């Protein structure tokens, strides 16, 4: 309870138990928050991102054959401006290529993107490769 008088607010001396309960729960949450971050502060040793690409879906859409992919970053360091190259292959021959740039792949996170190929993808394979990245 807070008393407002003359533009001044005075917190009551004998607060309701709910105020203490809320305060305790909040204190625990703040400590947990700091704890989780502190754990990472001590364990994060990565200096460079660790990026891998995987195709998550292929669908025929009006613009062509659409590939959905996912870039995973296993390291704690973030990569930005991640250039991804997609090659549509028939056997060892590259039929078509597509390229895109992802703004960010944050540490221990993943980012999604897509590519569109003109050639029919059935019977062919899609190889994805990360070409380059920056550090934010």
């Amino acid at each position: 309870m807070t008393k407002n008088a003359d533009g001044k607010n005075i917190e009551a001396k004998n607060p309701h138990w709910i105020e203490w309960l809320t305060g305790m729960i909040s204190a625990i949450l703040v400590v947990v928050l700091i704890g989780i971050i502190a754990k990472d502060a001590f364990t994060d040793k990565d200096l460079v991102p660790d990026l891998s690409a995987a195709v998550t879906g292929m669908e025929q859409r009006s613009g062509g054959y659409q590939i959905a992919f996912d870039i995973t970053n296993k390291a704690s360091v973030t990569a930005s401006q991640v250039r991804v190259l997609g090659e549509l292959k028939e056997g060892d021959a590259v039929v078509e290529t597509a390229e895109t740039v992802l703004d960010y792949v944050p540490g221990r996170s993943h980012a999604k993107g897509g590519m569109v190929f003109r050639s029919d993808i059935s019977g062919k394979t899609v190889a994805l490769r990360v070409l380059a990245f920056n550090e934010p």
Partner: protein
Amino acid sequence: MDGSFDRRKFLIGIARGAGGALLFALPMLMTMEMWELGFYMSRSRLLLLLTLNIPLLILLAHKVGFEKTSTWRDAVRDAAIAYALGIVSSALILAGMGVLRYDQSLHEIAGMVALQAVPASIGAMLGRSQLGGQSQDDDRENADQDPVQKSESSYFSELFLMAVGALFLGLNVAPTEEMLLVSVKMTPWHGIFIVLASLAVMHGFVYALSFRGSHDLAEGTPGWHALVRFTLPGYVIAALISAYCLWTFHRIDDLGVTQALMAVVILGFPGAVGAAAARLIL
């Protein structure tokens, strides 16, 4: 209808609401990410935000609304007017800046206006109360009857005000790309520092600095009481509101736990300042 409808007073109220909407929402109306979010954000999240805004405005109207609303019916009426002012002023300004064009699809236009209407309507509500919504006559009358204006605000209304303050600053910065950029630039050590700094700033704002409206403890109460009862819950609220804003704007969808927490912590900083300021101002 009590027959004594004061048209001038009503129009001034509307104008103050529109002024408040402008004052509070212009930064967001001029943020590119907010325009883009208007058409790409998930419609279910937008719907949730628009729906949550209704009880928020009603509670806000009840607590700080102009004309000291006495009944819930008045609060609902004021909330509806504020929401409408938010929609109209957002649409006018977006159209006036050439951001909204007639050849855009209804889906885009509705999304952009609806998203901006949320902060604008909160601004309209605050504008009506904070831009001198309570007329001077009211104050003078009260002063005559009771030289020391006394009131009590319940614990939960204090927490609610903190949530509104945090939401306000949160909505301002959560949509920007900088939130993500800052959170990936920070190391966990920076994160811990920001948490502690947020707590210190929040506590200092309300208790240490002698701003108008600042809070004091009743005599004989140890200082840490206020920290546990008000500052820590306030920070948790600010952090939760930050998480909600980031989630609404798809800022933490694909992030791992650590990165998401860092984003919440960094947005929690302005959120904490907003929460503390709300306790002083509202």
